[in-house]
């Protein structure tokens, strides 16, 4: 039981990290980035190629994250420009459809070029005992990474001027413009941040198990569920929802079975939309 809950927390932190990248972009510009999972995969494939060339795992991780940042910024500077010229629901819909298209392009190209592509970063060492349960070093690294990223984000949004600027754009785009903040620049930075998070997710996930080229759609789905349950636009909500869903997922998979578990997760998302559309911690 304890082992299952701990597994759930490891998974939940990964879910949370995944959700944050998506929720930031939504909170800022009202765009649900359906290509998010494919960006994660792109980072993983790039990192695996770097490892194949004989570089160290740390270098590969860095290059992978940078690749995800680059891809994300590219998306922002090209496809997202016409999206941001729209307003309200029209903007969200166009963003949804264009990123869906981008997801197919990125996913298709990767699957075509690297059909057997996968990233698995092996972290050596004996399992470490956490409250009496032996945990693999990879899982602990992955969780520590997620927690560290969460802490950095908290400081960034709470204590830095730029972080506050980002929050001001989330709250009121016009108001932010009036006090001298350039929303379009802020959006590009947030897209870059979201890409970096996608890269970190790829690296952290590959420490607990191989990340294959076909996982993109599934990752996007999980990110979407976490984002919706946590409240679209809420960073803390995404982490909370990630943890919650991770534990529910582990418990349900252990006691009920995998297919029903997916339905339980999907049901949680649907119920959240119906009962509390702004999510756990949404505004």
């Amino acid at each position, binding site marked *: 039981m304890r082992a299952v809950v701990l597994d759930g927390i490891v998974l939940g932190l990964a879910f949370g990290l995944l959700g944050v990248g998506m929720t930031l972009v939504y909170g800022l510009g009202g765009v649900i980035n359906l290509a998010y999972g494919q960006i994660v995969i792109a980072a993983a494939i790039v990192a695996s190629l770097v490892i194949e060339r004989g570089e160290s795992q740390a270098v590969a991780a860095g290059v992978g994250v940078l690749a995800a940042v680059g891809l994300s910024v590219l998306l922002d500077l090209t496809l997202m420009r016409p999206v941001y010229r729209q307003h309200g629901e029209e903007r969200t819909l166009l963003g949804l*459809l*264009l990123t869906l*298209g981008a997801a197919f*392009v990125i996913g298709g190209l990767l699957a075509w070029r690297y059909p057997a592509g996968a990233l698995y970063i092996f972290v050596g060492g004996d399992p470490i005992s956490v409250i009496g349960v032996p945990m693999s070093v990879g899982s602990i690294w992955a969780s520590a990474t997620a927690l560290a990223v969460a802490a950095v984000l908290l400081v960034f949004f709470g204590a830095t001027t730029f972080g506050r600027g980002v929050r001001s754009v989330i709250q009121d785009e016009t108001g932010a413009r009036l006090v001298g903040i350039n929303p379009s620049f802020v959006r590009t930075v947030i897209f870059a941040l979201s890409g970096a998070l996608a890269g970190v997710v790829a690296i952290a996930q590959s420490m607990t198990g191989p990340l294959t080229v076909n996982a993109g759609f599934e990752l996007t789905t999980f990110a*979407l569920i976490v984002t919706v349950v946590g409240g679209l636009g809420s960073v803390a909500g995404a982490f909370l929802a990630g943890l919650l869903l991770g534990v529910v997922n582990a418990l349900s998979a252990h006691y009920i079975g995998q297919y029903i578990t*997916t339905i339980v997760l999907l049901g949680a998302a649907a119920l959240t*939309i119906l009962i509390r559309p702004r999510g756990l911690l949404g505004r």
Partner: protein
Amino acid sequence: MSETRKAGGPQQLRRIGWAFLPIVVTAAFLAVLPPVWFGDSPYTTSLAVQALVFASYGVGFNLIFGSTNQLFLCVGALAGVGGYGAGILANESSLPMAAGVVVGTASAAIVGGTLSWIAVRRSLGIIFTGIVTLVFSLGFANLLLGQRDLTGSETGLIVDGVPADLADDSVGGYYLFAGLLVAFLIVFRALQLSHVGWAFRALHDDEVAAELAGVNVSRYRIYAAIVGSAMIGLTGALLAYSAGFISPATYSFDRVDVRVLVMVAFGGLGTLLGPVIGAGVFAVLDEQLSASLELREVLYGVFVITIFLFFRRGVVQAFVSLFDRFVRPGRRTPPNLQSSRE
């Protein structure tokens, strides 16, 4: 927008005649296609049937999304409700095919109507309707995989009692689905011409204004969802019988929904023939690209992006506007019942 002449009599009749002309042309075209082109090739016939099936899904989806702005990302799941409903009934009981088709269609209509009712009651916008229906699609797929005894899971389900002359690679099957498509088109156009069509157009253009003008937006949304879902479910159920074999992949999100969305958007959302033209064009494209599934995916992505960036009203509509501007300036178009996306 439509002309508002209320003269009645011969003029009214002529208007209706004009409105149904495209369907007559389509029906004639579909009728002569097998003898002049592929009458003896089962392979080509099955491709044509596939295109007809997707065009039929497209008409249903078009009614729901194109007419009343409800983003239903569960076309595959609704077709699956119809298909598995019919297939399981056929296998578990000795009822005839017609009973299975009726049950499948009714189940899909009920599910679609319920989804729409929930969306309307909770006043979910386009996006949340999209997410809820997407969640339904994924949940349905997992349900199919999980209920191994009833659905056969990934290995699929062989449907008993399939009439051989309606198989999906025979000319009989072709005419079954061609007839189905023409029937759907007639229903679609009849709805457009009736008071329902006026309500659809009003709520599509401006929901608040429509509500203020006395259109019961919620009710018409649910109507559209029930009729559209019934169309999708009926197509899925007939496909189950015609193919004789169904699996979760037959109705999966990435196989059905994405294609339907791309096709309908290509042909023009909310237009009568948009789904038909889209299905035709993509049948040819698929055939050309059958070598690489991955590259086909890339192409779909490029199409989605191009269509929504540059041809918001559909590629066909763009050509029609060009034609109108250069070829027959000053002439009024015949009753134009196509709604705009703007």
